């Protein structure tokens, strides 16, 4: 902050009410801490004004594919901040936190019911940690059977980057299975790759193309017949609530991003929460802790052959509280309605734009549709330009250039939260932008025009990194 004035303050601490204690040797002590000196109003105004530079769900349509930018109910923030939930210490004796552990247990049960995988640990702090925990479980399972030669993770070419990165952390060699021309896993290729080295097959369901894998039962059978486990990346679980249970399809392990499907705020990039769900057989390997109901009440337990602690305490508790509130508010019918409406909305957008934009796969999608700007690219405008132009209309850009197997990908996920009017507005804007490709291409090349900044020089940012404020620069 470059607005410090010596002597200003935003906060006063109480005077000490204990007798003065001797300070340690001055050689240990610090002279000064270089922090801002500003008034309280300056703090509030500074951060309030900064907030106004953001797009957010509260203020903008945010059709960011695979991120599930749905409404984040305000009541969930309020309830998770109740003093009885916010001001409890993670190491309090179980008897003093019965409500908190009961909440965790109930959420475990609900997630188990929704996914059909009844062993649940809420410990993972984000999707990537849930993935990593899942892979640790797979490795522990094979190790326990003295089958430790299984060191390969098979990952589709359409997978999110965290899949191979997590696999590498778990010491697994990543082998890529191809997608066929319909965007499905190439089953014959998988059959060639699955063998006695296969530890796990990591599959995103629905896929990053927004498609449900029609050969799923055959796929899980191929992997199981080879002795491997099936891990489902649940990033796209918003399509499946009450529509299908992963456990019924032969999935052994999955994670869910509570900050996607279960409406907890993304916070500009976290905090998240990525619970891991497994079959009964694998439950003994779950990361600790797991909430359990016993005769003497609720306790936090360590599963018998747990893969251990993947973080400091019990996971993102106040995120879990928000997700639980969301599930309770929607209930059985409401959750089903979430997925059904998300699927209808995505297909509606796809149907209304398919004459102007290519589709990654020409079939019905689930909760998101992957468009390709290949046609626009031939006319001189890239997917990036279209994404940036959308910002001028107050619409957040879709996910760009992902999945990598699609040329000029624009991944659009409207979610169930958006009204038909909003979808129609988006469709109209996307059609107008397609017109502009020919009529006013410079509008796209230079977009965005009306935001706090235009396109940024990211090359210089990386070449000569300036990563902190300092008085000299």
């Amino acid at each position, binding site marked *: 902050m470059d607005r410090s004035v010596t002597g200003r303050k*935003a*906060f006063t601490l*109480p005077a000490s*009410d*204990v007798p003065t204690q001797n*300070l340690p040797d001055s050689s240990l*002590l610090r002279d000064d801490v270089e*922090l801002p000196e500003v008034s309280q109003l300056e*703090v509030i105004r500074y951060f309030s004004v900064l*907030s106004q*530079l953001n*797009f957010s*769900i*509260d*203020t*903008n349509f945010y059709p960011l594919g695979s991120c599930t930018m749905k*409404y984040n109910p305000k009541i969930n923030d309020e309830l998770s901040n109740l003093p*009885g*939930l*916010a001001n409890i*210490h993670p*190491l309090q004796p179980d008897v*003093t*936190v019965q409500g908190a552990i*009961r909440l965790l247990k109930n959420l475990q049960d609900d997630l188990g*019911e929704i996914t059909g995988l009844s062993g649940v640990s809420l410990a993972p*702090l*984000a999707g990537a940690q849930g993935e990593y925990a899942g892979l640790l479980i797979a490795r522990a399972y094979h190790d326990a059977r003295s089958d430790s030669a299984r060191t390969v993770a098979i990952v589709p070419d359409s997978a999110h980057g965290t899949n191979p990165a997590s*696999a590498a952390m778990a*010491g697994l060699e*990543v082998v890529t299975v191809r997608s066929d021309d319909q965007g499905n896993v190439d089953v014959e290729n998988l059959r060639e790759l699955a063998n006695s080295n296969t530890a796990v097959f990591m599959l995103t369901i629905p896929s990053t193309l927004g498609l449900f894998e029609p050969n799923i039962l055959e796929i899980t059978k191929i992997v199981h017949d080879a002795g491997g486990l099936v891990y489902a990346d649940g990033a796209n679980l918003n399509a499946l*609530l009450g529509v299908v249970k992963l456990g019924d399809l032969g999935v052994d392990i999955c994670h869910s991003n509570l900050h996607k499907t279960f409406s907890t705020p*993304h916070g*500009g990039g*976290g905090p998240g929460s990525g619970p891991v769900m497994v079959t009964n057989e694998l439950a003994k390997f779950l990361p600790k802790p797991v909430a359990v109901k016993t005769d003497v009440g609720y306790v936090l337990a360590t599963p018998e052959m747990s893969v251990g*602690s993947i*973080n*400091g*305490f*019990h996971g993102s*508790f*106040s995120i879990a509280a928000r997700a639980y509130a969301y599930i*309770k*508010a929607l209930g059985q019918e409401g959750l089903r309605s*979430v997925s*059904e409406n998300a*699927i209808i909305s995505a297909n509606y957008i796809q149907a209304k734009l398919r004459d102007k934009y290519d589709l990654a796969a020409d079939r*019905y999608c689930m909760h998101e549709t992957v468009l390709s700007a290949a046609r626009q690219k031939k006319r001189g405008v890239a997917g990036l330009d279209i994404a940036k132009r959308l910002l001028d209309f107050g619409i957040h850009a879709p996910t760009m250039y992902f999945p990598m197997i699609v040329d000029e990908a624009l991944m659009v996920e409207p979610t*169930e*939260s958006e*009204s038909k009017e909003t979808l129609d507005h988006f469709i109209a804007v996307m059609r107008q932008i397609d017109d502009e490709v020919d009529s006013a291409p410079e509008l796209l090349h230079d977009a965005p025009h009306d935001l*706090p*900044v*235009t396109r*940024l020089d990211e090359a*210089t940012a*990386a070449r000569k*990194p300036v*990563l*902190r404020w300092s008085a000299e620069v």
Partner: protein
Amino acid sequence: MASSAHTSPNHPYIPSTDSERAEMLGAIGVDSLDALLEDIPAQHRHPKLNLAAGLSEQELSTVFGSIAAENASPSSGYISFLGAGSYSHYIPSTVRSILQRGEFVTAYTPYQPEAAQGTLQVGFEFQTIVCQLTEMEVANAGMYDGPTAFAEACLMAARVTKRTKIGVLSSTDKRLSDTLLAYSKYQGIEIVEVAADATDIPDDLACIGIQSPNFFGEIEDVQRLTKLAHDNGALSVVHVNPTALGMFKAPGEFDVDIVTAEGQPLGVPMAFGGPYVGLFACKKAHIRQMPGRIIGRTTDTKGRTGYALTLQTREQHIRRERATSNICTSTQLIGLMVTVYAATLGKQGMKDLASLCYQKAHYAAAEINKLDGYSVKSSGTFFHEFVVTCPSAPPKINEALLKKKIIGGLDISDRSESGMLVCVTETSSKADIDRFVKALSEIGVSA
């Protein structure tokens, strides 16, 4: 035309009505939702979901009210002396107020920098504050929590030194080393314990991982240990308590290579363990091995200052299995809380806070040390935690304390005989401390 038969219209979170759904299905060219679901094996479609019916907001509030009421907290009259990685501190109104801004709360990771300058500039300020507190050259935009930051720092040291043996000081919190174990288990890494008073270490260590104040609240000789590491070609990784940095010399003064911390004490509720934020800083020379998001300052096409994610070629979405970490979603919003907290307390506030915590903890220790049967084991300089050797088993004492609405210190008898790790911060008044001391005295050997 059949609409989707399953939907229960008009939930407050779902705007589409039956007629709108029917209209959209018509535009898609199907007459029912099921036509969109044909890729899903029919026998598994629409399973029974054994969940309760949805609740109104008012009912939901009642449910949560009763859950919260089952927990013992200051609002139900309890005082607590637990620390060990999560600390009770007063959270200023500015932090709570800014946290209400939906523009921060409901934004995504800033992949479109033009639409996320607020989040990005806060992240840049966060990095600045982490550098200022630690006196390190560069910091990232945050890790999941303190223990994962520490684990990733040790793994980073292994990459930098191209060595596979990680030394962890014996006085370190097991939560740090356990997380490191889970993170490094399948990466061919060996973890070895280094005695806190070691004068010699193996010459093939990637780093010495040091916690200071250590698990027992004592300040370690970071300068000496860092020199010991460097003399043996290893890095020094130091996990600090950020509140202590308001008072004690920063690791940057001692040539430390990587610094991590649990950010929770800086304005984040204890919330039964999370979400928190890991602070992560290092020497500039090692930046390309640093995990996590990094935000840089740059200019736009009109020459105006702006901020963007940078050095992304380290990250999983580009580097995939060769990334420095699998971290993706991290803890930006908690970083905002830390940033507003540090800006609010400012230069003087951080000093005053550290001093207040120090004074109160040392007062409590001195009073407890006067009691028959109890003795304070921590020697040297401790910050706001100290070890009390109790006259009977700490769990028994804690049970008796609980009846007096006091949540005692952490039972650490597995690491220190009859040991209780007591934590005192500025949120304990003298009256609270005196009440605790009196209760300990009354319980004594009878527990």
